[in-house]
């Protein structure tokens, strides 16, 4: 199963994200966000010592708002704190609450190539739906 796909949206960037379960959908959304923004110049395993584990609880008015707030939180990790996501797992995944545990490391220009700057996660044409095969979401980012 594909984890995500990019779609054209005028000057902005759209992501269609998939998952067999809602939990997998949110995990793939996190992966897609950092995949689009950052390319590893060397594999994270070679770096050692810099990684740390972060746990966050995110709330939302509904599942769509929860997805936007989750991606907002991760985007702040990069734009505000300078952290790059290496891996993570969703510990709790409801419609209005999510708990995530992630392994992050500080952004370093010699290790990470910034491919695309994402400035904000928007609600524009936001969609999160259950499909026959699992879950699907569409999110548009301001770039």
């Amino acid at each position, binding site marked *: 199963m594909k984890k995500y796909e990019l779609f054209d949206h*005028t000057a902005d960037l759209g992501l269609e994200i998939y998952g067999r379960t809602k939990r997998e959908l949110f995990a793939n959304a996190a992966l897609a966000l950092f995949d689009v923004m950052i390319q590893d110049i060397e594999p994270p395993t070679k770096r050692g010592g810099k990684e740390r584990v972060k746990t966050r609880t995110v709330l939302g*008015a509904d599942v*769509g*708002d929860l997805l*936007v*707030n989750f991606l*907002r939180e991760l985007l*702040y990790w990069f*734009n*505000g704190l300078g952290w790059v996501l290496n891996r993570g797992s969703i510990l709790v995944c409801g419609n209005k609450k999510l708990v995530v545990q992630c392994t992050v490391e500080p952004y370093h220009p010699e290790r990470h190539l*910034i491919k695309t*700057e994402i*400035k*904000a*996660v*928007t*609600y*524009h044409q*936001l969609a999160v739906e259950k499909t026959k095969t699992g879950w699907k979401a569409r999110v*548009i980012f*301001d*770039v």
Partner: protein
Amino acid sequence: MSEIKLEKLDDNRWLLPQTGAMRVPGIIYANENIHDLLRHDESARQVANVAHLPGIVNFSLAMPDVHWGYGFPIGGVAAFDLETGVVSPGGVGYDINCGCRLMATNLTFPDIREKLKELTTALYHRIPSGVGSTGYVKLSGKDQKKVLEEGAAWAVKAGYGSAQDLETTEDGGCLGGADPEQVSARALERGKQQLGTLGSGNHFLEIETVEEIFDETAARVFGLHKGQIVIMIHTGSRGLGYQICDDYLALMVKHQAQTGISLPDRQLACAYLSSRRGQNYLAAMACGANYAWANRQILMYLTREVLEKTLRASPRELGMRLVYDVCHNIAKIEKFSVAGQEKKLCVHRKGATRAYPAGHEAIPACYRSVGQPVLIPGTWGPDPMCLPARPKQWTKRSAAPATARAVS
């Protein structure tokens, strides 16, 4: 443009009739060429969506190069009643007080021809741009608070320019009502190292020559002449403004149900202007606006420094002075005549600038005889322009967006 039907009013105006839950009709300023462009995006639908918001006065407006945005279209203008109306972060945009600053010089192109490459390199070196760029100005917490409260005046006090620069900056480069307490720790953190940077996307610093004069009188008053080198800066409040918008958008979405306002698009999340949440957003937004004015003031100072050094010119020889600085992502409380009565309104301009006429008290005394300079940066097609504002009524006291996509 899907099912939206526009009715042609004249060569440059289209009426978007009031239907369904729209509270007012829309007006789109567009000629036939632009009208054709509207068929390919959702901006007309967005003009209609804005017309659903409570307390909107007269019309939901779109300036000539309207195009698709988040919630409000870019080029969207809407005024709201202070008692019954709302403020919407989506009506201001993520980059609070994104704006343009035009600087004139005593130079002509032959003065810089041989030094152009050196000049460009020096500008790139001195003025950080691109993703995540950080600047030379490092702010302490105390200084940052002052930047948010005082705007360009802080920059001048800190030595980045002169008091004369403030005279030709919209509102003297400081929006009142700023309260740093309403700005999140996250936004403050993002703003600490970005003062004096351009950023990425469509932001730029451009060396331009004045190619054509359309109005000799206005040009003389603005201090512009054919062949002159001028510099235009287009940037805003950087990560700080983005974070303020995002924080309040999340907060307003969270509490939207409590307001009882039904929205056609979640990105239009809003709060009543009379509510604490609405007032807090305005106070935080003013901080973002002031940060942006300080930023453009510092960028002007750095540019002047680079030009003087590279061209080995004295300040007098260079003669750099600010023509005007005007924002195009903002919500401001302004007085207008509505149905014969003077009223204070909260005017949202997203990708649209103020355009006050000759004689208006809010424009610098030196320009009052011809009207406020309206700065329209170019795009890959049309060239940038500096125009004197000549509106006749309040609905026209706004002008086209920042990065013009089409020119009528």
